[in-house]
């Protein structure tokens, strides 16, 4: 779904970047572009290299090889960092500083920060301005981190697993904040292992596994690239028998039903109906993003093993 805000201008990039920690390669020759106006989701299981990719873009980690650019500058330049905001994983304020004081301090680092009241409103912290950070609940701490990320009114926002540990309601509220920022023309990089989240928010998804880009595209493209359908039905055919049919990639006996996975269910059904005209209780469903994602990362693993 093209969006009026998304342009082809690249504002940040990893160019053939690798990052090794001793023997472990966390990011393996990765190319990644962030375009102005888009919400880009980095999707992958834990340990895939999402956070390392973000840390490289933020200048928190230095590439072992390759180049990182943030607004055409090395990410460690203050001039580049004045244009970004970031929400990091497991950062937390433990002291007695108050919410309003912390936000005011961070706002002061930026050239044109939002007014304090505006930041508090964006993060839903209006009633908590005077509360010591140490007394915030988990969700409120998360909102404080979000406030620090947006307080400088940055052009590009990095949100590293922003909704981990939030309840459903807070997560929905958070999604709305992100959509509002996008509407205001901000670019956003979001890492998540919630597939639903990437699907709901992103213009573009980059699937990462083992430090590499496995797939990239719109949510619809990602789903399509691993088109898989489920056929559920009651039949006298045995699972082993169905498994032999062309185009079937998996069969599961589920009580009285068979659950058959196939790329093109029509041809499989045609064969099955020839063998068992009495087949009934038929149901064909598309794959959800979750399955598409698992299929992608699994295929990738098999390729690597081969």
């Amino acid at each position: 779904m093209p969006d009026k805000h998304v342009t082809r201008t690249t504002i940040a990039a990893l160019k053939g970047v690798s990052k090794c920690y001793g023997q472990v390669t966390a990011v393996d020759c990765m190319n990644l572009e962030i375009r102005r106006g888009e919400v880009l989701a980095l999707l992958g299981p834990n340990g895939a290299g999402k956070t390392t990719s973000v840390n490289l873009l933020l200048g928190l980690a230095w590439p072992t090889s390759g180049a990182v650019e943030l607004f055409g500058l090395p990410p460690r330049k203050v001039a580049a960092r004045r244009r970004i905001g970031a929400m990091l994983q497991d950062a937390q304020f433990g002291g007695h500083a108050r919410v309003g004081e912390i936000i005011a301090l961070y706002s002061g680092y930026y050239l044109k920060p939002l007014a304090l009241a505006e930041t508090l409103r964006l993060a839903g912290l209006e009633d908590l301005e005077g509360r010591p950070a140490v007394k915030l609940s988990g969700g409120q701490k998360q909102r404080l981190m979000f406030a620090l990320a947006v307080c400088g009114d940055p052009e590009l926002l990095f949100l590293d697993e922003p909704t981990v540990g939030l309840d459903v309601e807070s997560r929905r509220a958070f999604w709305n904040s992100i959509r509002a920022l996008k509407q205001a023309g901000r670019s956003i990089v979001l890492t998540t292992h919630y597939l639903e989240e990437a699907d709901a928010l992103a213009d573009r998804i980059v699937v990462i596994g083992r430090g590499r880009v496995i797939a990239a595209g719109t949510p619809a493209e990602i789903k399509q690239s691993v088109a898989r359908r489920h056929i559920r039905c009651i039949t006298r055919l045995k699972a082993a028998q169905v498994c032999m049919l062309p185009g079937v990639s998996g069969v599961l006996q589920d009580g009285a039903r068979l659950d058959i996975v196939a790329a093109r269910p029509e041809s499989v059904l045609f064969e099955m109906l020839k063998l068992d005209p009495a087949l009934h209780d038929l149901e064909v469903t598309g794959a959800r993003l979750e399955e598409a994602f698992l299929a992608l990362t699994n295929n990738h693993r098999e390729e690597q093993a081969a």
Partner: protein
Amino acid sequence: MNTVAVKHWIWRDTLGVYLREAGFQFWGLVRMPGFALPTLLFPTMFYVFFGLVFAKGGDRQVATYMLATYGTFGIMAPALFGFGVGVAMEREHGILALKRVAPMPPMAYLFAKAAMAMLFALIIVLLLFVLGAAFGGVALPRSEWWLLAVTLVAGTLPFCALGLAVGVRVGGQASAALINLIYLPMSFLSGLWVPLQFFPHWLQELAKVFPAYHLGQIALGIVHQDGGDFLAHLIYLLIFTAVCLGFAQHGWRRIQDR
């Protein structure tokens, strides 16, 4: 189109960042009773006991001597704990990473911490001065009060460097333990609690290893107690500070790359 940025970053903005950072650190420390109370209470309490109460018949000589040594003891704590434990904690809690992502000049952070160490040192020094003058009969020419105060406040810097070298390497809990292990034995072995002449000869020689000894000797020299060679002590402290900053910079570089 976004409006073109007409506002430019100027030196006044940088100054603002430095001042806000210092103010933020100040309120953080004041609200943390675990920091403010012991750093202000211990040196004053020790000075009252050993410099004023136990000194035979309000011996002015003892009260003056101990003003220099307990002053040295006192100003070390905010530097060592503020840097050693403060940096370690903020690193462990991801605050340092957050500050590095935000466009904060790193020097603002170090400046704020050093300014706080010096501010607390000044408060400690003033408390001791008042106690010494009011109850210990300490009487110095005005120039020497000033010189002693400036020396002790500036004397926090080697201990800031030492604290920083610890804080960039060691975890939060471990740093508190390690700083205590450095602070208390070093104070004793440098003759800050009990004058060195009561020590066996080899311990007197050992004391020369510690920066606290050298700062203590400079302070004693100012109040006309035998302090030895001022220049030698100063050179030792400068070298010590440089070495600590070297270690700190090495550790700092390592934490730059997560």
